[in-house]
Structure formats: C-alpha cells, structure tokens
C-alpha cells in the first residue's frame, strides 16, 4: 500500500490532534499520581463532567465556549477538591489500589448518572464562531478548531511542566511528595497543597473535556472511551513522570494515527501492544524513575 506524502502529512497532523487530548489527560493523571500516589480512575468521568458543565452553561446560563473554558475547569476542580477532602484523603496512607477502586467506583456513578439523565447519544455542542471554518494548509484541509486544540494543548502542557519543574511552588510540591513531614516542619500546609494539586489535575481533565465538546458529542460515554487509552499512555510514559506523559501523549497519538492508515483494524489495540512491549523492556515506563 503506497501512501502519497501529502496524505501522510495529513494523518500525522490528525495524530497530533488526538495526541493533544491524550497529553492533556495523561498530564493530569501523572500529576495526581506523581504527587499524591493516587491512581485516579475517575479522570475520564471528570473529563466528561467538564464537557457537561460547558453544555449546562450554554443551555441554562447562556454562557458560550470561552467562559466555559475557564468556568468548567474551576467547577470540576472544586468537585475534585470536595472528592479529595471527603473520600480520597482517608485512603492516603493505604495502598494506591484502594484509591484506584474508589475512583473507579466514583467514575461509574458519575457516568451512570449522566447516562440516565441524558441518554447515550449525547448532546450537540457547536464550535465557537471565531474558530469555525477550515484552512487549506496545502496537504489537507485543517479545521481551525483542531488547530486551536493543538495550540492550546501544547501551551497548557508547557505551562504545567514549567510550574512543577521550575518554580518555587513546584519545588514545594515535589518536596511534599518526597517527605511530607519535613516539609510540614517548614510551615507549609501540606494537606492543602495535596488537595489543591488534586483539584488542579482534575481541572486539566475538565479543560480537555471542554476542548473536546465541540469535536465529539457531549456524551456520558466520552470519558469511558478515553480513560483506558490514557492510562496506557501514562504507563508507557512512566507513572508520575510529567514530561513522560506529555511526550508519550503526543507520540502515541501519532503512532495511532499511522496505524489508522496502514492497518485500521488494529487502531484501537496498537497502544496496548506498545504498552506491553514497553513494560517488558522498561517496567518503569519510558521516563519513569526506576526503583
């Protein structure tokens, strides 16, 4: 099967778009895992919730896409904070698997409630006027909205990476993960730091949800479809590695995109095959810290 280079560029670009979502979602997961040691299975459900909040805002408050981009992550982040305070906190000293089970349950509940209320087909959400239309970039017609998704995802990922790896706040966070007792002794409110980090990670999921709303439908199942894939991305990148999750998010989007051209039947299994291969040779993931 020969593919003209033009078509190949198009497919690579599309892979990059999907990679943007993977990167945003896996980034949130990596932060939550890296700093809190929580395997946040509710991430997909919170991504769905972000999209639904955007839809609610439009439907009931008349607030469009741009305000939703800010409000939805804040609302869902607040929900995350409540979740952390009331439930997750109690599991902090236990094995991460307990957190996994709790968040898995929370995800099923959220998803089920949305499904009962809104059905499985989802609700339409229009692309904002400013980003409607498409640009011919030579080798393909690129919808403006998708270009915006790539740009904003790269921006958000870079800022998050910078904050955690290069700022004082980030260093507190990393220190609190290494040795919470000592950091507390310096007068830093570690539990609050942990809660806010969870809220921020969850907010990233909601942001991805708002970004996804105009592309896919606002559907109760949108998160469940993504979450398993995103976990594979995080595992490949190395659990808890910020850079690893961003890198593998984009890279796997590209690889998946190529699979859709060369052997589309395998496009939903390729990531798991890669995950298995990576785990065999590098059990800590590509960028994970080895034990």
């Amino acid at each position, binding site marked *: 099967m020969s593919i003209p280079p033009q078509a190949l560029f198009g497919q690579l670009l599309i892979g990059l778009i999907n990679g943007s979502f993977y990167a945003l979602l896996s980034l949130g997961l990596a932060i939550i895992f890296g700093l809190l040691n929580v*395997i946040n299975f509710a991430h997909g459900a919170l991504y769905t919730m972000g999209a639904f909040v955007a839809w609610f805002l439009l439907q009931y408050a008349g607030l469009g896409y741009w305000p939703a981009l800010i409000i939805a992550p804040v609302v869902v982040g607040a929900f995350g904070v409540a979740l952390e305070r009331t439930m997750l906190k109690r599991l902090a000293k236990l094995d*991460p698997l307990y957190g996994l089970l709790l968040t898995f349950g929370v995800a099923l509940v959220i998803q089920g409630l949305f499904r009962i209320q809104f*059905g499985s*087909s989802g*609700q339409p959400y229009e692309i904002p006027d400013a980003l409607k239309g498409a640009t011919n970039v030579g080798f393909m017609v690129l919808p403006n909205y998708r270009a915006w998704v790539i740009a904003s995802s790269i921006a958000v990922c870079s800022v998050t990476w910078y904050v955690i790896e290069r700022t004082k706040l980030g260093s507190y966070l990393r220190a609190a993960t290494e040795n919470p007792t000592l950091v507390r002794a310096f007068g830093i409110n570690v539990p609050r730091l942990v809660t806010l980090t969870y809220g921020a990670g969850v907010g990233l999921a909601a942001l991805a949800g708002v970004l996804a709303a105009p592309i896919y439908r606002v559907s109760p199942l949108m998160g469940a479809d993504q979450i398993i894939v995103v976990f594979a991305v995080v595992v490949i990148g190395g659990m808890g590695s910020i850079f690893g999750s961003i890198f593998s998010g984009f890279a796997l989007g590209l690889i998946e995109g190529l699979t859709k051209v060369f052997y589309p039947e395998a496009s939903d299994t390729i990531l798991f095959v890669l995950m298995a291969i990576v785990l065999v040779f590098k059990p800590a993931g590509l960028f994970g810290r080895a034990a």
Partner: protein
Amino acid sequence: MKRTHTTKTSALLRSTRAARSTGRLGARVASALATSAFAAGVLAALATPGCKKDTPSGAGPAGSTTAEAVKAAGNAIRIGVLTDTSGLYADLAGQGSVVAAKMAVEEVGGKVGDVPVEVVFADHQNKADIGSNVARQWMDVDKVDVIVDVPTSSVALAVSELVKQKNKVLLASGPGSSELTGKQCSPNTVHWTYDTYALANGTGKALVKTGGDTWFFLTADYAFGQSLEKDTSAVVTASGGKVLGSVKHPLNASDFSSFLLQAQASKAKIIGLANAGGDTINAIKSASEFGVAKGGQKLAGLLVFISDVHALGLPTAQGLNLTEAFYWDKDDQTRAFSKKFAEKHKGAMPTMVQAGVYASVVHYLKAVKELKSAADGKAVVAKMEEMPTDDTVFGKGTIRKDGRKVHPMYLYEVKTPAESKGPWDYYKLLREIPAAEAFRPLEQSECPLVKK
C-alpha cells in the same frame, strides 16, 4: 482463569506493601486494569440475566389444566428484551425497547388467555459472549419464551443460533445484518424492522440515481458493518456505480478524522457510512468539520436513526438522506403511538427499532393466543408467518418463510432548521418504497428454509 486473577491481585497487594517504589507501578497498574476489567465483565455477566423483573412474577394461574390455558415455559409468558442499555446503541434501542415491549403487553391487558405476560430485560454490552450467556440463562433457568430486540448483529446472530437449539423465539428488531434471514436464517427467528439489504436498496439506490456513482465506505468492523457494505456495494454496482475503496474502523471509534481523510483522498462522490449509532454521529460531525461537503463529496448515512439526528442537531444533519421503516409523524396512528411512548420515555420519540419491538411483540402475542401455547418456538413462528400482521405502527404486512417481515420502507431527507417546526420534527418524505421492492426478493435468498 478466575483463580489466577485472584492470586495475582493478592500478589499485587503484597508486592506493594513490600516495596514502595514507583518503578514497577506501570506494570502493576496495567495488570490492575486487566483485573478490574475482567472483574467488571464477570460481574456484569453474572448480575444481568433475569434480575430486572418489572412485572411481579406472581404465582401463575391456578387453572392451568383447563382447556383455555395457554402453555408457556414457566408459569407466565416471559419476554426477554436483550439490548444495549449502556453503550452506543442505548438510545436507539435500550430502555426505549423495554418501554415498547411493555406497551405491547399492556395492550393485551398483561395476559394471554389467563396466563400473565412478563417483561424482563438485560444489557448485552454489544458483546456476543455476554449476550449468549444471558440468553442461555434466560431460556434454561428463567423460563423466558421469547427474546426480543437484540441490536448489534454479531450478538443477534449468536443468539439466533442458540434460540434455534432451545426451540424458543427470537424477534429481532435492532440488528441489521441481512444474514439473519439469509444464509444463517432460522425457523425460530423473525427479523422485523429493517436489514442491510433494505437500507442499501433505499439510500444506496437513491443516491446512485441522483448521480452519486462512485463510493468509498467507512465500515464498522463487525458483522453488521460488513454486511451493510457488502449489500450496498452490490446495489451500487448493479445500478451502474463503482466502489473505489473502503476503510474498516473499530466499533465505537471516537475519532473519525483519520478515516475521513482517507475517504477524501479517494475522491469518491459518495462517502458511505456503513456504521450505526454513536459511530455514525461522530463520523457525520467530523465530516462537517473537515469540509467534506465543500470538497464536493456527499455523505451517505446508510443507517441513521431519529435518535442520531436528534443528537446531531439539524444544523449538522440537514440534507442527509436516510431509509427508515418508521417515522413517528407519518400518520395519525403513528403519532398516537409515539405520543404515548414519549410520555413513558422522557419525551423521546420512538426509533424504528423501538417501534419494531412493540409491533413484533404484539404479533407474537396474537400468535401465542391463537396457538394457546408458547412452548414450541418453531410452531409459534410458523403461526406468525401464517397470520398476516396488522398493527398501529407498521400497518398491514406479512412475514416470509425466511423469517423476514416485509412492509414498506421510506426514504427521508432530514429537514433544514428553517423547515422544522419544533423538536423531533426532522424528516420529509422523499419516496415510499413498496413492501414488494423494499427487501431482498425470496428468489435471491440464500436461506436454506426457502430453497427446499
């Protein structure tokens, strides 16, 4: 298998306590994922069958020895609605199908003769193995006499085979594969609402006639999609058109842009969507985003339900041609039925699948009443084929020897937002395809029941 998983889980727990390293966590999360997915599957398979009884089972009629008694597998006639209540087909079938089956039961007063009729339902999660397990348990243990709906052709084909073995009845409304009344036909199965042949014959033929003579398919990679692509290709070629290629996508694919790009590159005039439900919705949405229409290509949703149009919204869906067996706003009778249905189903109008569930159950109960027994599935289906059908939803029709119910099909076009007068006012009729033309002619049938 279960055992290995249990040991693995406890090993996991132990290893975590032993070493608090993040190094092996990737592997642990991966196997935890597998374990939980496995556990969820087992739970679902164990929990669903027969557990959601809506009519109280009661003690059954006392006079079961009288001449008037109607025989069933248990002390009641049990209708099992096997459907997708949680996945991408939940809106086009799902709980709406359960509502429809119950409406049919209510219409006969909840009883045939003096035997009560019960409705149970389960979620097959679009998986043939889960669907078969539920069906087996229903027929072996829970005394279910008839299984209805079963969207997802792969599940329906598996269940059809099982129903034949156990000599019960399958009233298929949700699945599309024309194989159900083709090579894999069964004397215990009635295929009610539509099939891939009828869809191809409706939408496919109409588009070729209006100049859409080159096609590229986006095909859902399972029994239904393949069958739909095959039947449509045959119609396209027979009408003088050409198929340029196709790409198979996984069921429930979330992103279609890559496949659409391949379709664009093919330069075919028509991009045929051989998929359904959520997949069709996503494909149409992406197509409007990628300017498929502006590039001079036309999209053909080969199976589009009214629930899909509702989810897409008219601005995106307008102008689509589609073939349906039922539209709520067709005449007074369908409006009356649909209004009643909507009251029981959160205001949503019935899809053709849900309407088909209602009509098929109505006809089934008539046949059982006539026979005074639901015990012999083959006999019930023979009776159903012998009696002409007549219901408020599809009007008069017949069921052929191969199990195919025939009625007219309708080619609709989705209205523009300006044409629509309100919610659910979505279609305008382009053409009525008479019953005799709508489905595969018997002489072309590969069904062994017909040949002999």
